[in-house]
């Protein structure tokens, strides 16, 4: 009886059901916290690249993640968006903030990357990220001229610069089509 096909199936079904039940319970138990963490992280990143903003709204119709940062008075402090592209070893994901009024970057934040630790990974360091704040969106972003490069990690530096330079016109375009600050 123990080796009959029916018994095999029953055992597997029971185990699977039990497993599914346990997982469903765990999921329900943990998901609020997980979602909260994700939302908090996104908000922190957006607010970090748009100084002065206290909350944000998402441009639902934008083809890529794009947000507007709003301050307490309800005025738009800037636009934030996520760009990703190839670095030295893998994808670099950056949150970028732009002040459309002043045509300037308000800040960038590296969300994820897989650059070499100790070298390219230094793009996450404050001095590197903060140098972009205040730069004109029409800047050439040439590494070692406009952008201070990381010693020994020219490629990672250039990747960040290139991602910014390539994405900015696109965002400005989107911003216009989405109706600016409305």
């Amino acid at each position, binding site marked *: 009886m123990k080796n009959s096909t029916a018994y095999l199936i029953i055992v597997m079904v029971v185990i699977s059901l039990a*497993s599914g039940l*346990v997982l469903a319970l*765990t999921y329900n138990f943990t998901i609020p916290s*997980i979602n909260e963490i994700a939302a908090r992280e996104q908000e922190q990143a957006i607010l970090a690249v748009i100084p002065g903003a206290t909350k944000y709204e998402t441009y639902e119709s934008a083809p890529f993640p794009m947000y507007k940062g709003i301050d307490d008075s309800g005025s738009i402090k800037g636009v934030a968006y996520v760009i990703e592209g190839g670095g030295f070893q893998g994808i670099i994901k950056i949150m970028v903030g732009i002040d459309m009024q002043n045509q300037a970057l308000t800040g960038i934040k590296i969300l994820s990357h897989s650059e070499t630790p*100790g070298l390219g990974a230094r793009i996450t360091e404050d001095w590197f990220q903060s140098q972009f704040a205040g730069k004109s969106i029409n800047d050439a972003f040439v590494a070692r001229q406009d952008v201070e490069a990381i010693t020994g990690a020219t490629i990672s530096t250039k990747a960040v610069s290139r991602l910014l330079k390539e994405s900015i016109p696109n965002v400005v375009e989107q911003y216009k089509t989405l109706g600016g600050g409305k």
Partner: protein
Amino acid sequence: MGATYEFYKGLWKENPVFRMVMGMCPTLAVTNAAINGVAMGLATAFVLVCSNIVVALIKTLIPSKVRIPAYVIIIATFVTIADLILAAYFPDIQKVLGLFIPLIVVNCVILARAEAFASKSNVRLSILDALGMGIGFTWALTLLGIIREILGMGSIFGISLFGEGYISWIIFILPPGAFLTLGLLIAFFNAFSKNKAEDSCCH
């Protein structure tokens, strides 16, 4: 070969990392810092203990033909639980360990203990076995993590040891450094192990 033996064998004599050279994927991938080693070790130990308990409990019910798929479902369940809990309450560690938490499912240490031990022993011994193996796995990963963190970042559990002027040995936080450190540690332990001949037969 009493109950205590089932516990302490995993610590050294049948240490999964240094003696059996099992579970190499997480061993090599996540141990670039001591805390990661601890976290990965504990997560694995958690899965190990839970799955050993369940397997030991229901071993008589599972037909031998489907035992491996059944074990895998059990293990996968606990891995997912571990992953969710880490994501919910320790998001930073979950981010660092990333893909390697789900990969605990295929860590051969766990399936090996379920298959080789829990499926043949009672719950009490299975818990002791899993605890021994889990702690053995954890200390091995932690040791690797400590060495790699000290050399690669000049810190231990995030506490800087040598100050600002330290030049990182970057290779040690990269995968090649994991291979080097593990290889040298195994060589070192082999050289100092009394019963070399007996142990070298394992895998």
